[in-house]
């Protein structure tokens, strides 16, 4: 699988879509999180402040980093999800899927290499987001790094990492429907269903909602209701999606 990994890394490095997505997450998420914090800390009574304040969990660094985690939970799913759809769906849209037949590298291994590279790239994005968020927090007056920061960093990375894993099943949608646009339609569907399930109060057991709730998106009470089993559901869903995609790639025809 080494050659497939090498080729997928090269394609990811050279393409525009992953660069734009990376910029949106690594820069956009900390900027948005810091802006929300500034709105929440201000004394104003704006509608925005009224909406943001209930999302705060704790104070200081804990509050700031959980806010980053909440924004990251949505941002990662959208950004990494789009790149997952592009990476798999383009092979059909561009007509290159057929050229991956009748070669020594199995298509199953190429699909697994794509998933592995995207997983590593997505996790790297989460780390980059935190690396940018911490100095931004210092600059915007959260305070000197200290109490609550380590726990906040860990929580943010876990939330981001789980959402990266959860973006992998979109590869199956993009592959089975032979294009990235159906995958992106599936991504939008997931966002809508997550919203509905969360509003209905069943978000803790819905893998796409649990990380965001744990990060405080539904307030401190909803965050406390999310436990390890709820979060761990992301792993069989996400990794199962990647394995199912590899299986499908191994059996599909080049129609």
């Amino acid at each position, binding site marked *: 699988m080494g050659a497939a990994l090498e080729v997928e890394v090269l*394609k990811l490095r*050279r393409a525009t879509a992953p660069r734009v997505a990376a910029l949106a997450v690594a820069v956009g998420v900390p900027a948005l999180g810091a802006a929300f914090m500034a709105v929440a800390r201000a004394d104003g009574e704006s509608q925005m402040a009224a909406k943001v304040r209930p999302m705060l969990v704790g104070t200081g660094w804990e509050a700031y980093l959980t806010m980053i985690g909440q924004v990251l939970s949505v941002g990662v799913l959208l950004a990494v999800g789009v790149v997952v759809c592009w990476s798999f769906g383009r092979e059909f849209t561009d007509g290159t899927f*057929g050229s991956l037949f*009748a070669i020594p590298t199995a298509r199953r291994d190429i699909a697994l290499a794509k998933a592995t590279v995207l997983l590593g790239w997505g996790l790297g994005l989460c780390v980059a987001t935190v690396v940018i968020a911490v100095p931004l927090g210092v600059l915007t007056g959260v305070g000197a790094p200290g109490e609550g920061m380590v726990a906040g960093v860990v929580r943010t990375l876990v939330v981001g990492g789980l959402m990266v894993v959860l973006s992998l099943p979109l590869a199956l949608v993009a592959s089975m429907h032979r294009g990235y646009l159906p995958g992106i339609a599936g991504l939008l569907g997931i966002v809508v269903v997550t919203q509905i399930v969360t509003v209905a109060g069943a978000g803790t057991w819905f893998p796409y909602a649990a990380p965001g709730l744990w990060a405080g998106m539904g307030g401190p009470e909803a965050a406390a209701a999310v436990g390890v089993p709820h979060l761990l559901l992301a792993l069989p869903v996400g990794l199962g999606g990647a394995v199912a995609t590899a299986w499908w790639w191994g059996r599909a*025809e080049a129609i």
Partner: protein
Amino acid sequence: MTTAHPSSLLRAHRLARAFGTEPAVTGVDLRVAAGEIHALVGLNGAGKTTLMRLLLGMLQPDSGRATLHLGPDGTDVRDAPAATWRGVGHLVESPFLYAELTVTETVRAAARLRGLPAHEARQATDRVIADLALEHWARRRCRTLSLGNRQRVGLACAVVHRPSLLVLDEPTNALDPAGVLRVRRHLVEAAGRGVGVLVSSHHLDEMARIAHRITVMHRGAVIGTLPPQGADLERQFFDMVYAAEGVDPREPEPVAEVS
């Protein structure tokens, strides 16, 4: 495990495939021998591309099978191991081409996926880029290439690992006359080294110049062969097609272009 003519590299055994109720390939037998350029000709929709896809495992047959004979034993293409596929190169419809990669990166990526170690892939890439006169575009991104140069890059990817068997679907249809000559020379040289080549083309005269055998397909079936050195191949071809259609050639029905 199967047995075949000692020099056969690829065989189709009663291969058949339909798309819904539309038969695309109907019980085709075919053989490609080492050192042979075997041309497939037929009208548009005759089943040439579908046959090539079946031979490469891109499609599953409804019945019959395709076997590769690149080692001591033959293997069904559905079970062929990686080592067997390393001996195969192909360009069927869309080439292995990624818009964001340069020509050199594309060909090198193709070489790596076709089993060449990194250092060999670099050398093989430089060699094939020179062979197909792609040096001028070597550092260009593929998205900037003309259709003809994309086709040449696709061909470079198909041959970079020096396969023993080549399956090429209309490899020259977008090329200028100089490009056609270069590809023709490349195929003749490959066959001279013992490579078996299965190639489809629009151009009967081009096939007549390089092919050792010409097989005619019509409506998914093989309807005959043409002598490569024969006279007036186009007339012979249409006589064969009209006979298959049951049409009197003295009162010809409108027939689509040769492909």
